[in-house]
């Protein structure tokens, strides 16, 4: 069974919020209607967003590390928001595992937002229905687009390739390999929601090299006091050949 999901690489996310703006741009102009804003350029701006980038400081100042943390619906394999919905407006698609809201059935009771431990759902203050990340379901199957663009808007916008999109149930997919090889993990695993979106941790790209690894102390040539000749001065195979 297919389970489409995002992989977010915290190692390369720079917190530029390009995923936030591209998400808003694509989804506010989509067939499902706008995502309403109040006072967007004024005091107390407020609006509907599917995706946000948060920032955390890990460690104690000044020895800290800044972690940018994009946060959107995780499309759980056991979504706690779906069974609580009284109307069936919230559902998980059989064919690709995307958790969606049917805006025509939603009564705006907000119960699903209570039942999501991640706070991934929010009510649109003007349309009065629950909204959340759709994994750009209106884009990823659009055959009018070139195949390379059939990806969520946030994935295409990310300048550092910190967002990857694919089938996490297919063990040979790019995203499954990254989860396997680079220590992909799920958020709040304690609630058994099994989020499909995975995060890749910060990875240290450094190795420790000791001096004796650079200068070979047990070099047998040194022991026999033989000096190493510069190979440039020596005749090559070409010099000795008759061709």
């Amino acid at each position, binding site marked *: 069974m297919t389970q489409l999901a995002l992989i977010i690489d915290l190692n390369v996310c720079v917190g530029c919020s390009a995923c*936030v703006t591209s998400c808003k741009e694509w989804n506010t102009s989509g067939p499902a209607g706008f995502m309403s804003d109040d006072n967007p350029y004024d005091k107390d*701006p407020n609006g509907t967003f599917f995706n946000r980038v948060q*920032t*955390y400081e890990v460690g104690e100042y000044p020895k800290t590390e800044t972690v940018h943390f994009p946060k959107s619906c995780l499309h759980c394999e056991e979504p706690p928001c779906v069974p*609580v919905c009284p109307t*069936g407006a919230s559902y998980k698609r059989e064919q690709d595992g995307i958790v969606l809201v049917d805006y025509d*059935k939603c009564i*705006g009771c907000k119960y699903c*937002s209570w039942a999501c431990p991640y706070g991934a759902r929010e009510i649109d203050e003007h349309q*009065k229905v629950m909204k959340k990340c759709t994994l750009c379901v209106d884009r990823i199957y659009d055959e009018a687009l070139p195949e390379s663009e059939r990806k969520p808007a946030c994935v295409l916008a990310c300048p550092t390739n910190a967002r990857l999109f694919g089938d996490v149930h297919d063990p040979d997919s790019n995203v499954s390999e990254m989860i396997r090889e680079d220590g992909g993990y799920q958020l709040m695993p304690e609630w058994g929601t099994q989020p499909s979106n995975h995060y890749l941790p910060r990875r240290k790209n450094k190795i420790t090299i000791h001096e004796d690894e650079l200068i070979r102390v047990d070099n047998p040539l040194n022991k026999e006091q033989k000096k190493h000749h510069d190979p440039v001065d020596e005749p090559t195979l070409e010099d000795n050949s008759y061709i």
Partner: protein
Amino acid sequence: MHPAFSVIFLTTLIGVAQGLFLALFSTQLYSELNILPSVSESNFYGIGAVISLLLLVGGLIASFFHLGHPERAWRAAAMWRTSWLSREVLALPTMMAAVFFYGVIHLGGYDGIAYTIGGINLSTSLFVGIFGVLATFILFVCTAMIYACIKFLQEWSTPLTVVNYILFGMASGFALATALASYLGLTEHVSFLGNWAIALTILVLLTRSASLYRNSRIKFKSSVQSAIGVRHNKINQISQGAMGGSFNTREYFHGKTAAFLKSVKYIFMVLVFPVPLILLFSAIDTSNTGVLFAAFAIQYVGLIAERWYFFAQANHPQNIYYQTV
């Protein structure tokens, strides 16, 4: 969580209505078993059923204010297999229908003897009442399970939530029934209902105290470490992705100070338990209608505070993501 007054009024009003109906039914049952005298011509059951029905309708109207699209509310009956909210949506009209027929039988004088066993005559309305009692308890469980079934809202996720909802509803309903019986001049029934109201209030004092004690010692399973998956003891949030607030900052936090929260707790602990108990104790023997109504009214005001506190106290794990602007 952010307490919504629509839900506060829904749960408290239907709680009173359910308790009142149980009080009517138990009075009728005791009367027909000849333990209590008959309520004779007073129409106690009929008037009580009307009040219960009005409270249920009031709760239903209040609940509509919680919806973004009230005109689609009928859809909420669809997912009763999985959703406690959907089950409540079915249980509420079922109970309303039972109370309606129970009231019609009593007020219209349609009651008759349905069954005689060992010289005891059981009337038709009693059997309608049994159906109503079943619906009442199903509704109690559905309402409470809406909250108790969310396992990561750890303050709610306990059987005590269900017990408290049932007992709070019964205590306030029996208090209202006591005042009604006193108003209708049913002196002997006042002491029966009043003593039940006292017993139920004391019982719910114990169970609510138990849940307050449990919640004060609660150990939260989620932490900022598990929320963002970074294993470090010191993690500070710098930004939450929005500077003007969002649904996440409004819906999941009561927005009041800890001192305010604490004062609401003390207010409801006084208004729901000792004050009505003293008033009930003092007025049952004399059947003082005014004092008995005051006992109910004060307890109801206290229950609004109790329900506000119930919502406000619950800590949603998503708040971990919204510690700072």
